[in-house]
């Protein structure tokens, strides 16, 4: 039987951060990961993260994962078991692990469950045909193994995963027939939707999959429009030939170990299913067992990392490590979480957490007392709801394409446009993200209150240098230069596909819906660097198209 102070189950964003935080206070940690390479979902997240600097915003998930893993490996107080699956948590507090093929017993003083989530499955005829994949599975095949999952994909679900994986499929050279979504609006970040729309991928809200067909494997799907009651509208059926159907219909927390451990559980729709009821320091109803990341409610990986850190701090703190320092660190982690959840996109998380709080009050009495004992609990979620946040109400929410009014509102004055280059930030939704603010050395991009605000460009301070283009995780910043020449204006675009165009090439210029507006000369291509990997492509276009061209296509590839 192995004894350890803190055992962390799951080496994803939450687990890695939990292990690092607990060991940073001096605790001895055992981190157990079922995969060969820790990182969880980070190992396949090739996109840049949102959030703030504190959650490594602007870095790609894969790089964040590598960095966290390197830190874990360098930390002497963390023992890392990979290829090791936790099998059960027993009544006597013993955790069994299949480690190096052996049935191994561990007795931890504190346990952090950071097991993440599993993809939801969907009911439709043919839903088990080979070629129906979870979106995460497709991401693994492409981004970990480097294998194309299919030639032409139908994506079901326009949440962040559906939108991001569609973009990544496109980057891998796979065609996407469409992204369909049952809800009347796009659930993911609209900048992700805009990105795929201008690559020519249609996003169809209020659509559902009726069936998958094919002899032995997927050969296509039948989709249809649905009405307000989610019933298919007769006559709207469409046959979509495709060889893969990707399900991005949400995740459900992977909670079996929390159930086994006897943690109080609650079904909270906003948190995507049954979740362990935790207090503000992420301790469950079972003293000494903490839960962090998706297992206690589905959120972005940025939040999972902060939760992991908080759980790690709480576990080490409860063992008596660095009491004063820990309290301040816990406080700042809680503030970070509150900030990440403060926008309209965090509304459901705030609601969900409030429901959990309610469960805690009416639930286990001892548990409630324990929560109060921590003494530093403050209700951040209500702070967040106090501020006035606006949800998008225009058609932008349905298709990811900004309306004329929305665009007019952010355009610089005509005078400024003629004076020289200036950044246009096509970011209309209040999402927790601020790398653009940090990117501008001149301080020309600002946010009013916090990272959830939409960025505002100061047209006096901005000199159109374009540094921000490749640093925006949403690829939503463009630089327009109407002073370029008498006939032509210059548009600088972010670019993340292969092949990369060269200056002198003529490429198709595309509008925000992916429609071709003409063929234009590439004037300049600059690399964002070896790590950043986002190119900035400068294109000479007629003056009247400079506010229309937002993408390019080389050959047949829409970009």
């Amino acid at each position, binding site marked *: 039987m192995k004894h350890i102070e803190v055992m962390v189950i799951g080496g994803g964003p939450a687990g890695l951060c939990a292990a690092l935080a607990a060991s940073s206070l001096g605790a001895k940690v055992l981190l157990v990961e079922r995969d060969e390479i820790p990182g969880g979902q980070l190992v396949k997240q090739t996109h840049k993260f949102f959030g703030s600097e504190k959650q490594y915003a602007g870095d790609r998930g894969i790089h964040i994962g590598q960095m966290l893993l390197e830190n874990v490996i360098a930390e002497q107080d963390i023992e890392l078991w990979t290829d090791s699956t936790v099998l*059960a948590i*027993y*009544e*006597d507090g*013993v955790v*069994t692990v299949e480690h190096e093929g052996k*049935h191994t*017993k561990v007795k931890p003083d504190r346990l952090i469950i950071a097991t993440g989530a599993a993809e939801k499955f969907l009911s439709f005829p043919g839903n088990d045909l080979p070629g129906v994949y979870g979106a995460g599975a497709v991401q693994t095949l492409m981004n970990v193994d480097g294998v194309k999952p299919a030639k032409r994909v139908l994506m079901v679900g326009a949440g962040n995963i559906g939108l991001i994986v569609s973009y990544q499929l496109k980057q891998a050279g796979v065609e996407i027939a469409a992204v369909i979504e049952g809800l009347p609006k796009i659930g993911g970040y609209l900048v992700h939707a805009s990105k795929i729309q201008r690559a020519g991928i249609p996003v169809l809200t209020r659509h559902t999959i009726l069936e998958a067909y094919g002899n032995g494997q997927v050969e296509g799907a039948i989709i249809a429009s649905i009405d307000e009651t989610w019933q298919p509208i007769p006559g709207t059926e469409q046959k979509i030939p495709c060889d893969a159907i990707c399900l991005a219909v949400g995740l459900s927390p992977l909670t079996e170990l929390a159930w086994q451990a006897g943690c109080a559980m609650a079904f909270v729709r906003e948190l995507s299913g049954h979740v362990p009821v935790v207090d503000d320091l992420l301790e469950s109803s079972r003293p000494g067992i903490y839960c962090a990341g998706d297992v206690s409610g589905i959120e972005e990986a940025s939040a999972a990392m902060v939760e992991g850190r908080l759980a790690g701090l709480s576990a080490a703190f409860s063992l008596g490590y660095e009491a004063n320092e820990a309290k301040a660190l816990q406080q700042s982690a809680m503030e970070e979480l509150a900030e990440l959840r403060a926008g309209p996109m965090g509304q459901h998380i705030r609601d969900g957490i409030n429901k959990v709080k309610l469960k805690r009050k009416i639930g286990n009495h001892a548990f409630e007392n324990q929560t109060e004992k921590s003494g530093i609990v403050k209700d951040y979620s209500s702070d967040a709801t106090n501020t006035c946040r606006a949800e998008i109400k225009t058609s932008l929410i349905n298709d990811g394409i900004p309306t004329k009014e929305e665009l007019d509102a952010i355009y610089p004055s005509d005078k400024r446009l003629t004076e020289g280059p200036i950044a246009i930030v096509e970011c209309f939704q209040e999402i927790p993200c601020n790398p653009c603010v940090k990117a501008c050395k001149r301080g020309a991009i600002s946010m009013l209150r916090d990272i959830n605000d939409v960025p505002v460009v100061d047209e006096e301070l901005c000199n159109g240098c374009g540094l921000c283009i490749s640093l925006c995780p949403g690829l939503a910043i463009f630089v327009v230069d109407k002073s370029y020449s008498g006939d032509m204006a210059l548009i600088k675009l972010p670019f993340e596909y292969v092949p990369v165009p060269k200056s002198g090439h003529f490429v198709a210029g595309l509008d925000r819906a992916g429609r071709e507006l003409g063929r234009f000369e590439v004037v300049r291509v600059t690399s964002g660097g070896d790590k950043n990997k986002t190119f900035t492509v400068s294109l000479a276009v007629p003056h009247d198209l400079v506010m229309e061209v937002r993408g390019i296509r080389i050959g047949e590839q829409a970009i």
Partner: protein
Amino acid sequence: MKKSYDVVIIGGGIIGCSVAFELAKRGRKDVLVVEQEYLTSGATGRCGAGIRQQWGSMLNATLALESTHVFENLEEYTGYDGDCGLNQGGYLLIAYTEKEWEQFQKNLEIQHQVGINSHAVPLDCIKEIVPHINTDGIQGACFCASDGHADPFHCTYAYAKGAQGMGVEIVTYTKVTGLKVENGRIRGVATTRGDIEAKVVINATGGHAAQMAMLAGDELPIFPERHQILITEPVAHIMNPMVMSFHRHFYVQQTPHGSVIMGMGDPNEPVSLNTKASWQYLEHNAWVVTQTLPAFRNLRVVRQWAGHYDMSPDRNPIINEAKSAEGFITIAGFSGHGFMVAPRTAILVSNYLTGQQDSLDISRFSVERYKTGELLLEPSVV
């Protein structure tokens, strides 16, 4: 649910449901079964569901033989449209000590007197029955081809649906919280859904039976004891019979579905209502079974769980009408073999309650036996 019934049965396991069915069949149809969770949620749904006729006492051998006959036609008998999953692959009992082997031979005589088609298996023929067995240390073996295994859920539902078809009512997720006794007679039960009057109340609550009987002032020597089971991934057919060793306290068998199910008794298990599974059991059972069946090392365990045996001092059922509350009858204390004798036990109890003749003497099961010393001794239990 009405306010009043002729008979209220507490417990929706195989005992409660089979008694309800047999009573209704004999015309006592004004019966309510009260189950605290769902049918089979207690010991029945957690048991190994073996059906063994190879017993060492005349009484048990008879109960088991006649119960087996019912299991053989349970669907027809109850009018159930499901499949009760009976698989008569036989039981291979293996003896690891001389003494055990001697006992087996005595048991065979008793079994033959009752008409059970069991027989001794020569050591060199054991592998014909179970090809993968390690015969090291085995002193002798017995086999009965009509022993087997059934699906405890479907068997219970067969009885329950059959009973409902005759007018019996069943309420689930309803807990009995009290018993109403007046002038030495049972009057009804208090439940989480209100009070119910009854002329007869049957306590078929397995490991909870002593606790329940106490509510009627009846003190019974029935103790819950945790027993654990594990089951493997389904694999193609590898073994027909149940293999069982009293000496090593285990049984193992492949279900028709392909999973291999095994269980083990722990002589040091304390009295408790604990139904949590333990890692100690998991490792121990794996070790014990792979000693006898080394080839099973490659099988992978998918699930483990625990349930109660309702133990009695002589490891045999107690069927007892409370002195303190006439009409309150406990049927429990089966000590791990309640499932396989339930059909005949239900007939016995129902015959008694409807004043019909029975070839077995129900008073033999009374708790009085512990005072008189006329214990029901059974040498062959796991």
